[in-house]
C-alpha cells in the first residue's frame, strides 16, 4: 500500500530525511516513532505530495508521489500536525467543502458525511462553528475529513496530541477499527501510542531509520542485548573461566580487570546469556561454591522503553552539540 524507497529531503547541507525506506502492507497500522525534529512530519509531507523529495521516491496505493500526485492525493486521507481547519466554517459545511474538493457529488457527500459524522462522534456538533470547538473535537473533525472519501490510505501526523486521556483511548479504538479497511501510517513521539495501536513500528532519528519491525521483534532484539552483572571477590581470570563454564552462559567479560587492588579485591563480570536465558541463579550458586564473597547479581535488561529513551536523548544531545 505504501512503499517508500531511499526517500530523502535535504535543506542545504542538512538532511531532514535521509534515505528512508519502508513498506506498509494493506490493512496494516504502522507507527512512525521518533523525537521531535527527527523528520517524521517532513516524511509524511512528502508522502502526501505537499513537498517533493530531494531524491528517492515512494508509491501510495500503487501511484507515484511525484508523477501521479493527483491519484495519490485522491487515494489518501491526511491529518496534518496541529489539525489546521477553517475556523469560521461549520462542521458539516466544512465536510461538504472538502468533499467537493475531492470531486464527490452531492449524493456521495451526503451519505459519506453521515457515515464519518457517526464514526467520529460528531453527531451533536454538525452545526457547530469549528473555531469554537475544543482541541479534541477539532481532531475528530480533521479525522472525519481524512476519512470522508473512503481513502485506501490514512496518514495521520501526531493524531493524539492535545487530547485528554478518555479521548486518547477513544481515538485508539477508532484507529484499530479503521485499520481493517484502511492502511494507516501515523506518527507519534509516544511509545505507548504505538504499543496500543500499531502492528509495526518504525523508529526514526535525525532523518534516518534506526530500527523497524513488529514490537515483538524489536523487543526480542533488545532482550538479546541484556546481560547479567556479577560482583564478587576473587581472582579476575579464574572468575572469568569459572563463570564461562556455567550452563546457559554465552560470554563473560571482566569489566574492571585490575580492580582487585583498589576495590577491596572485588571484580565485576558481565555475562551474556544464551537465547535470553535467566542464568542468575546458576551464576550465584557457582560463585558461592567457589568460595568467593558475592556482593551483587543484577540483570541489566535492555527494554524497548530504554532503547526509546536513549533514542530521544541522543537526538537531544546531538541537537545541543550541533548548536554549539
Amino acid at each position, binding site marked *: 500500500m505504501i512503499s517508500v524507497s531511499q526517500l530523502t529531503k535535504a*535543506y542545504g547541507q542538512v538532511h531532514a530525511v535521509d534515505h528512508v525506506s519502508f513498506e506498509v502492507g494493506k490493512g496494516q497500522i504502522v507507527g512512525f516513532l521518533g523525537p521531535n525534529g527527527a523528520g517524521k512530519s517532513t516524511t509524511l*509531507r512528502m508522502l*502526501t*505530495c*505537499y*513537498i*517533493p523529495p530531494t531524491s528517492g521516491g515512494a508509491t501510495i496505493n500503487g501511484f507515484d508521489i511525484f508523477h501521479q500526485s*493527483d491519484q495519490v*492525493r*485522491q487515494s*489518501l486521507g*491526511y491529518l*496534518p500536525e*496541529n489539525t*489546521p*481547519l*477553517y*475556523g*469560521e*466554517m461549520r462542521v458539516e459545511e466544512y465536510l461538504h*467543502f*472538502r468533499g*467537493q*474538493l*475531492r*470531486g464527490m457529488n452531492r449524493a456521495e457527500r451526503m451519505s459519506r458525511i453521515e457515515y464519518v459524522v457517526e464514526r467520529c462522534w460528531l453527531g451533536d456538533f454538525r452545526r457547530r462553528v469549528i473555531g469554537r470547538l475544543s482541541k479534541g473535537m477539532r481532531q475528530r473533525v*480533521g479525522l472525519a*475529513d481524512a476519512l470522508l472519501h473512503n481513502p485506501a490510505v490514512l496518514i495521520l501526523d501526531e493524531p493524539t496530541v492535545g487530547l485528554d486521556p478518555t479521548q486518547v483511548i477513544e481515538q485508539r479504538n477508532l484507529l484499530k477499527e479503521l485499520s481493517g479497511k484502511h492502511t494507516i501510517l501515523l506518527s507519534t513521539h509516544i511509545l505507548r501510542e504505538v504499543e496500543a495501536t500499531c502492528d509495526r513500528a518504525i523508529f526514526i532519528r535525525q532523518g534516518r531509520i534506526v530500527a523497524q519491525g513488529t514490537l515483538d521483534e524489536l523487543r526480542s532484539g533488545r532482550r538479546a542485548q541484556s546481560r547479567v552483572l556479577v560482583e564478587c571477590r576473587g581472582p579476575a581470570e579464574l572468575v572469568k573461566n569459572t563463570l564461562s563454564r556455567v550452563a546457559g552462559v554465552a560470554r563473560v567479560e571482566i569489566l574492571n580487570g585490575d580492580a582487585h587492588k583498589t576495590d577491596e579485591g572485588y571484580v565485576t563480570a558481565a555475562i551474556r546469556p544464551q537465547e535470553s536465558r535467566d542464568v542468575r541463579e546458576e551464576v550465584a550458586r557457582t560463585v558461592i561454591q567457589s568460595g568467593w564473597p558475592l556482593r551483587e547479581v543484577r540483570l541489566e535488561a535492555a527494554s524497548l522503553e530504554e532503547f526509546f529513551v536513549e533514542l530521544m536523548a541522543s537526538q537531544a544531545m546531538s541537537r545541543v552539540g550541533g548548536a554549539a
Partner: protein
Amino acid sequence: MNRSIAIARREFAGYFRSPIAYIVIAAFLLASGFAFQKDFEPGQAASMRSVLEWMVWFLVVLIPVLSMGLLAQEWATGTIETLMTAPVSDTQVVIGKFLANLGMLVVMLIPTLIYVLLLIVFASGRPDLGPIFSGYIGILMVGSLFISVGLFCSSTTRDQIVAVVLSILILALATVVPYLAAQYANLRPSLRTVVDQAVYRRYGDFAKGVVSAGNVTFFVLTTAIFLFLTVKVLESRRWK
C-alpha cells in the same frame, strides 16, 4: 473547474462571516454616493462619468482589504497544507480565490445600479446608457487587475497587514502616481508616453464609452500575469 468554484464559494461565504465585507461595501457605497452627487446636479449631462472614474480610486484601497487574507491566512493557519494535499492544483486554488473576490466586487457594484435608475427617472434628457455600460465593464476589468495584484501580494506573506500594505503600494504606483504626474509635473515626451499607458487613463476610455481592443487586452493580460505569478509563488514551496 468545479473545484475552483467550491473554493470560490467557500471564500465568498467567508467574507460575510467577518465584518470586513460589510465595512468594505459600506465604505464603497458611501464614497461613491458622494461622488455621484456631482453627476446628479441640475444642469449636468445625464451620465455617470464622475462616479465611475472615482470608483477606481476607491478600489485602490478597498480591493486589497478584500484580497489580503485570501492566501496569507492559509499560510498563517496552516490550512494551506490540508488544501494542497486534497486533489486540487495550484492553479485551481488561485482561480477559485480570484473568483471569490471578483464576486465580492460584483456585490459591491450592484447597489450602485440604483444611480442608473435615478438618472433614468430624474434626468431631464435620457441618459446615454452606452458609456455607463462600458464604464461598468471597465470597473470589472480594472477590478480584476487589482484583485490579481492583491492575491499575488497575499500569496507572498503569512501576514495580512503586510499583504494589504504591499498591494495598496503597488496599486498606487500603477494609478495615483502616474495620474498626479500627468496632472502636475512637466514631463518629457518620452515619460509622458509611459504615463499615458497607466491604468487610470486606460480606464478613462471605458468611462467615456470607448471599449478598445487594446485596453481590454491590457487588462486581461496584466490580470493573467499576476495570477500566473501567484501560482508560481504557491509552487515555490516545492523548490525549497
